[in-house]
């Protein structure tokens, strides 16, 4: 069996990288090698994982500096003997080894409005055309791996922005509410409350790393920014609001 040259972060903020030589089989992914390491040399090595098929988004880590899913990173990508450095996601507080505290994301999730759909027709049917739901289905592919949150420099380099910035994952969720063909109320909220959309300067780092290939910037963030600009800064609408206020 070939052996992998693994360098893995061990411990909390005061920890360090440790180097391990780990035997592995053909066809393995990085997560398999981490499990092998756990079973043979480091029983207490902390790593999150669930499905091992790129569907649950649990095993995100920074592999040779790139935030990725460990379960979708095949060992064949590396040269024989090449050092494979596995580090925890940098944007979130470290708990231990490869596990970080992702509470920030769960707190932001609480701020996103829930859909509020129009009533179904008299036969209890909600008709929607496939073509109208497809753009929202793209957003629903999100597996919440938080890799987009991890690379977003608005928070990666400036944690102080966290309070005012929902992050790419939640812009995607906002877009999925705002663009639901039958939503009637929640969509207004998504536009009127900023969620920090203005912090994003569309560098597309999030889009580049999305393991689901969601076009986060083009299909979610930019349309939301446009709607917001339309809603709040369109001169005709501003005039309309002014007249409405006069009437009141």
């Amino acid at each position, binding site marked *: 069996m070939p052996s992998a040259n693994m360098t893995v972060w061990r411990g909390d903020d005061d920890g360090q990288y440790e180097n391990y030589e780990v035997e592995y089989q053909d066809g393995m992914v990085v997560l398999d090698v981490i499990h092998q390491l756990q079973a043979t040399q480091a*029983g207490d090595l902390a790593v999150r994982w669930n499905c091992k098929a790129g*569907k649950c988004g649990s095993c995100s880590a920074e592999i040779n500096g790139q935030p990725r899913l460990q379960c979708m990173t*095949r060992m064949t990508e590396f040269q024989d003997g090449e050092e494979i450095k596995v580090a925890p996601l940098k944007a979130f507080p470290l708990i231990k080894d490869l596990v970080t505290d992702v509470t920030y994301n769960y707190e932001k*999730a609480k701020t996103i409005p829930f859909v509020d759909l129009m009533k*179904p027709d008299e036969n209890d049917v909600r008709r929607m055309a496939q073509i109208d739901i497809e753009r929202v289905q793209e957003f629903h592919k999100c597996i919440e791996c938080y890799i987009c949150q991890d690379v977003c420099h608005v928070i990666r380099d400036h944690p102080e922005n966290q309070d005012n910035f929902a992050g790419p994952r939640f812009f995607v969720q906002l877009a999925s509410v705002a663009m639901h063909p039958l939503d009637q109320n929640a969509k207004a909220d998504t536009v009127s409350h900023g969620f920090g959309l203005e912090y994003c300067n569309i560098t597309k780092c999030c889009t580049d790393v999305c393991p689901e290939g969601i076009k986060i910037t083009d299909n979610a963030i930019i349309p939301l920014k446009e709607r917001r600009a339309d809603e709040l800064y369109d001169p005709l609408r501003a005039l309309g609001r002014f007249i409405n206020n006069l009437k009141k």
Partner: protein
Amino acid sequence: MASIESHDYDVLIIGAGGAGLRAAVEATARGCKTAIITKSLLGKAHTVMAEGGMAAAMGNVWEQDNWKVHFRDTMRGGKMLNNWRMAQIHAQEAPDRVLELESWGALFDRTPDGRILQRDFGGHRYARLAHVGDRTGLEMIRILQQKSVAEDIDVFSECTINQLLVNDSEVNGAVGYWRETGDLIQFRAKSVIMATGGLGRIWSVTSNSWEGTGDGHSLSMNAGAEMIDMEFVQFHPTGMVAPTSVKGILVTEGVRGDGGTLRNSLGERFMFNYIPAMFASETADTEEEADRWYTDKENARRTPDLLPRDEVARAINSEVKAGRGSPSGGVYLDIASRRDTDYIKRRLPSMYHQFMELAGVDITKESMEVGPTAHYVMGGVRVDPESAATSISGLYAAGEVAAGLHGSNRLGGNSLSDLLVFGKRAGEFAAERALQMEHSALDKEQVDEAVSRIAKPFDSVGTENPYTVQSDLRELMQNKVGIIRNRSDLESAIGEIAKLKDREKNVTVSGTHSYNPGWHTALDLQHLLSMSEAITKAALEREESRGGHTRDDFPTPSDEFGKLNIVATLSDSDEVNIKREPLSEMPEELAELFKD
């Protein structure tokens, strides 16, 4: 001993998959203070792995479909061992649960006239599965997760329950630990709902994640609940087989539902050689008829590629044994030669992605190699069909951990609908009980016992590595209590499990209490071992072949065993006891449906 973090809830739900979340939404809506406990982060439960869809007789694609046809398919798929009342409730209520999910934001694929599209699946007479491409489970979990957040339900993430507390023959709480810190936590609850999913980790080739260690099965049995049908395990016919590291990962039945076919190394569509008498009248016997069936359900019979999963898994097993398998020990699943590239990518995007990324196989150009993988347990905690109540007061169970709906074999697509139909009912009846009573005191002795068991692997003087014991058990169960079983293997397995139980007592772990997977693995072993024992003993007792239980020493179904459940309970000395009990009798108006 230090003080333990304590919480009181009306309804405590263990497990945050589809059933747990749906139950939580229901209990909250009925005014209960509700908590969800999950071993993982919220939204990562095994439900995300469900691909093909959710079965519900909505009749959107074939208006001839209705609950009676779905009920009949479910019973026949389960080889008539199902609890008929659960199968009836499930078939009747599934369409409402689909529409409810839609009202909470789920976006199922659509028919040309804008209604929910339904897809073909094994054992279902009509195209019946509401779906979102091949990632329906992800849609379900995310929508329920967002609904739970909107309802402000308390969630204890990365928290593991290690014991249920029983007072006066009533479940009234639970003890566990936080995975992050190792700190202990206890709950007082008026009702507890078990929604922990399955136990696929018992086998070495499985589609299940680390979480599927049978915790809820084992906690319930320990608390005194009756288990039924534990011998029935579904080996999904199509798991990935190569490369080795991905062995077991699920390949959705949707591939066959959307036109894919199984072939052996000679290129033959071998399923035509494995049509059982029970399904002969409704299964195509020529390739021409089978292929026509996809578009003409009135004049053609269903392709044998879509026989129930137990039939297909056994057929694949036989082909490989006969030397007609693929190089990696599976068979071929071919959709490339049968559907165009655009169609495959649109209908099966995550299968395309999964094979491309993990195996370097382009499924629009080449066949997939597939073979059986431990996927689902039909057996579990015995429940009342109406209320999901178990045999102990205060304890409810829903989803995979509960038994009865699927009989000896589950049809694809009936799991997601099971989660919602019985998750909702469990939430409803658990809430009804909780609203009528006060909390009762926790038994300190039981709490202390749980606390010392949780700490034990650190105090052990033994030298066993928990990962090694787990992998030895999985190897044993794969070899001796797998798809094809016989008396001598099962008897020998019972002896081996006893030895592994002794080794489990000597398991030791290194490191600290902070996020220590070695320790967590050590604690999960007790569940894996006791459920392995229950499965093996039940499998030894059932001297016939039926659904997800095949004995090569009793290769056919028997009338005697077809009328009874195998019931497992735990004795005072922690041994699994087995007894036989007659099935409940189906009323005449339902029995009529099977007379043709």
